[in-house]
């Protein structure tokens, strides 16, 4: 008799459990409907905004609230764009000290390899001034600032980014020379890497060697503006082979140029 009493209880329990489930399904379905309606309304509002069409009257009442959402999403889009730009080697601006100063971080890259990141903090109070930076001293920052800063802030950032990327590229090339081509001996170089002298041995075992000096007149480029080749026997320097090499050095980054010269066999 006890068992039956027990099962009766369970029976009743099962029934009201079922009732509960039904109620839950109904509420969920209603919620879904409402969401569909809202997203639809939102979507067409957004299309209108994009095409800049005038909005009907009744939609503007909750427009204030929607506008905030849309502005926020716009802002997020722009931020993503900025970080992407920063990732591909551009620069990134961050506001700091409650709007009184902005910090620009320049990311440099060469041939797909990320190199240093330089930072620059600008004080925006009265006139835009550079307050702090860790850009190497050999980069003519004062000159660039004098020319471009007050006139066109964006251009200044642009050209500075070019300078930095070029410097990083040149430095990387010198590094690659040492790594990839051991036989070439670098005689002289400087911090700004805009002056490079190296000596490479000719194919035969004789002591004859060629001295190349590269000058990078344009600091925003990774390629030299002037290449001079000197050697003991003048004929070698004037030979067509070395003329081709000179042009090669002018057009392509120095380490790849040297690699091809070695493949071609003009240097050891």
């Amino acid at each position, binding site marked *: 008799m006890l068992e039956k009493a027990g099962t009766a209880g369970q029976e009743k329990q099962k029934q009201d459990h079922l009732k509960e489930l039904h109620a839950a399904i109904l509420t969920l379905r209603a919620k879904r409907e409402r969401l569909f309606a809202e997203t639809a309304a939102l979507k067409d509002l957004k299309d209108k905004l994009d095409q800049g069409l005038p909005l009907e009257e009744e939609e503007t009442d909750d427009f204030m609230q929607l506008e905030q959402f849309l502005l926020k999403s716009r802002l997020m889009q722009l931020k993503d764009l900025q970080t992407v730009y920063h990732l591909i080697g551009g620069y990134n601006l961050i506001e700091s000290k409650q709007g009184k100063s902005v910090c620009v971080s320049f990311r440099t890259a060469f041939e797909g390899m990320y190199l240093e990141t330089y930072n620059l903090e600008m004080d925006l109070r009265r006139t835009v001034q550079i*307050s702090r930076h860790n850009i190497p*001293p050999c980069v003519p920052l004062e000159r660039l600032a004098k020319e471009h800063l007050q006139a066109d802030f964006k251009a200044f950032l642009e050209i500075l980014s070019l300078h930095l990327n070029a410097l990083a590229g040149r430095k990387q090339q010198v590094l690659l020379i040492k790594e990839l081509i051991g036989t070439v001996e670098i005689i002289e170089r*400087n911090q*700004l890497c805009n002056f490079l002298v190296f000596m490479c041995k000719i194919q035969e075992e004789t002591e004859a060697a060629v001295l190349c000096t590269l000058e990078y007149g344009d600091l925003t480029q990774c390629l030299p503006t002037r290449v001079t080749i000197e050697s003991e026997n003048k004929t070698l320097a004037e030979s067509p082979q070395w003329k081709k090499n000179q042009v090669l050095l002018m057009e392509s980054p120095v380490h790849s140029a040297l690699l091809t010269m070695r493949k071609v066999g003009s240097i050891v």
Partner: protein
Amino acid sequence: MDEQARAILQRVIRKIPNKKLQTALRAWDHLSSEQLESLDYAQPKWLFLENLISRCEENRLSLKDVTKLEMAYYIDNPSKGTWHAYQLFQAEGDAVSVNFTQFREQLKAHLKDVVRHVSVRTKKLEDGAVWIRIAWGDNFSKPNHLKPTYVVHYLQTSYVFVLNLMSKHKPFLYQALLLSTRHVSIKEAQLSSRSLTAMRDLLMRQYQQVFPTNQERTLKERNAPPSHPSIEKEHAECAERRHQMACEAFGDGVLPKLETAVYKLETKYRGNSNNTLNDKDELFRGVVMFSSSNLLESFRHCVSAGMAEGPVTPLLSSITQKGRNSFVITDKVPGAASQTPAHKA
């Protein structure tokens, strides 16, 4: 070996500690290895010197070679004597493309035609630093090698560091430097310290600076989280903020080892109590000097430990921003151009 060479040799040998004598002489490589072996480096210095002189005389070394040893010594110990920093301004167009050989020739030439008797010796180091040793004579006397001036310049940068330059030789050096580095003007950079490397790192910003970029994350991970979830540091956030502020003002990690910072006050005394001092418009002149074995480190610790309140005062942060360690503070003249307290050179 003449008298001056012997005196220079004695001075350098006395300065080099016994342990480092052998390496220094080997680096000099003006003595054969047997001669180096035959020297007993544990002898008292004056006995060792006599043996060394006898061996130098064997190799007939001259004053020139001894100056090389002295120069090597100064290069190895950049923190002997006080260095002063100078800054070059208004670079001409081709200043960027000055290379070492060009610079050296021009500097020697300009110095020679200004001072008849001068001995100039230069050496370019791996990191691009150009060391110049100038022994000044004047129109009649030979260059005095006992009081040489040392100049260190990094090509393509606008900074020059000088050791014991006498004021009467200053104009000559200024002119020679300007011409050889193709700059228009040169000025004292209000920075002097015993350690050359510290000054170089400070001016050429070769220390880890902290910018308010996405670097906060690294700072947060840096201070270890408490070892147990139920332990909570109350002052964690503001300690974090203070530390961030300190690092932004003075930099993170190993800092250049400056020793002193000097502030010359030319301000009126504005004590809160209205005693007699402040009604006279007489300037209250005073000198405030901070000194420590590592000044920037101690400032950073004070700020991050909360001893110094609030945002770092421009008086302290301008040491790293402007790369200076001696300032003249004058009262804010109404309508003065710069908004921070006027720092006149």
